């Protein structure tokens, strides 16, 4: 298992290095030939706010790399993602049941800025969600997705479980039982 982690780490750094390299080589300023819908462009330029903390990836990254004694279950989701919404109760249940085992659930919303007020906040309120909710607002997805996990293609739901000794990434949905099985690999 240790060996696997070491290899994983090496793979992670290799991939990060190679992807960064590709990106900096490719930076090119090109005249935009796109006919963008003016109304839409203006809409995204409005500054959106939320009662939840809003991070870019740099701001979120420390939450993915804590070295205290807790085990963190970090779920990437959005209100428009049906399977994410379906598995949400399992994460809530784990968060409540495993508190004494030093487990903390963090729900990272990938909802778009125009959905924070209209969809995300009402959803969290209606479902009475108790886990920590944060917003990741960083359009440079090709840069940050591999930093979460090199094997992540970008599909959600996706979940990172980690503590200071170990981390696993899952690009899939969970049942309550499956989530417990994975979590038990960390807390026992």
């Amino acid at each position, binding site marked *: 298992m240790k060996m696997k982690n070491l*290899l994983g780490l090496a793979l992670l750094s290799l991939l990060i290095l190679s992807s960064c390299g590709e990106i900096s080589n490719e930076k090119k300023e090109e005249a935009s030939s796109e006919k963008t819908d003016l109304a839409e462009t203006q809409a995204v330029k409005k500054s959106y706010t939320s009662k939840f903390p809003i991070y870019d990836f740099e701001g979120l990254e420390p939450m993915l790399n804590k070295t205290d004694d807790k085990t963190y279950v970090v779920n990437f989701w959005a209100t428009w993602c049906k399977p994410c919404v379906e598995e949400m109760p399992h994460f809530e249940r784990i968060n409540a049941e495993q508190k004494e085992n030093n487990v903390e659930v963090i729900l990272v919303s990938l909802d*778009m800025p125009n959905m924070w007020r209209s969809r995300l906040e009402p959803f969290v309120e209606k479902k009475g969600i108790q886990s920590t909710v944060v917003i990741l607002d960083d*359009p440079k997805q090709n840069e940050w997705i591999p930093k979460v996990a090199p094997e992540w293609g970008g599909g959600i739901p996706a979940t990172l479980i980690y503590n200071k000794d170990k981390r696993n990434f899952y690009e899939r949905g969970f049942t309550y039982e499956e989530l417990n099985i994975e979590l038990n690999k960390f807390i026992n």
Partner: protein
Amino acid sequence: MKAIKNLGLVILLIVLAAFSSKNISLNEGYGIGDVATDFSLKDVDGNTVSLSDFTEAKGFLVIFTCNTCPYAVAYEDRIIALDAKYKPLGVPVIAINPNNPAAKPGDNFEKMKVRAAEKGFTFPYLFDEGQKIYPQYGATKTPHVYLLEKTSKGNVVRYIGAIDDNYQDASQVEEKFVENAVDAMLGGGEIKVKTTRAIGCGIK
């Protein structure tokens, strides 16, 4: 000396592991260099469209997209712009809706017609009836782009991934992944970024 030898072995192992797990993650569907399948799918006008119909084409931008996904909607204008720019150069956009309307009613054939008319799609918008084509390509989400080059072997996959690096705001894009890839392909140069990742709506 022995330590150095061991270190060498470890590095070799790491490199091998890196390549093998990379292959595993790309196992489902096409990788770069694979020959992509042709298809016969119905467009919103009821006509059957195949890649082989485009006798003059040099390649294709096969884009799996849909009516309902917020990311797909955010990219609609840019997909239209890609078609406007590259169809005259021999690389038309072919859009395919891979979703099962039973699971996503908003992506049914009638709603595809409505969306194509509303946005004035200039390219074929095809329905992957029975969901037979997207698994062969390995598309996992919308939007998901496959750049194909027509060769004597067939339509070879040259690029897989996102359209550009900013779904939110076309004016803030720094890297136009697809345009860079098509330009390199048409210019006979090396495509520098062959695969990219993006958050998208899982295909259902």
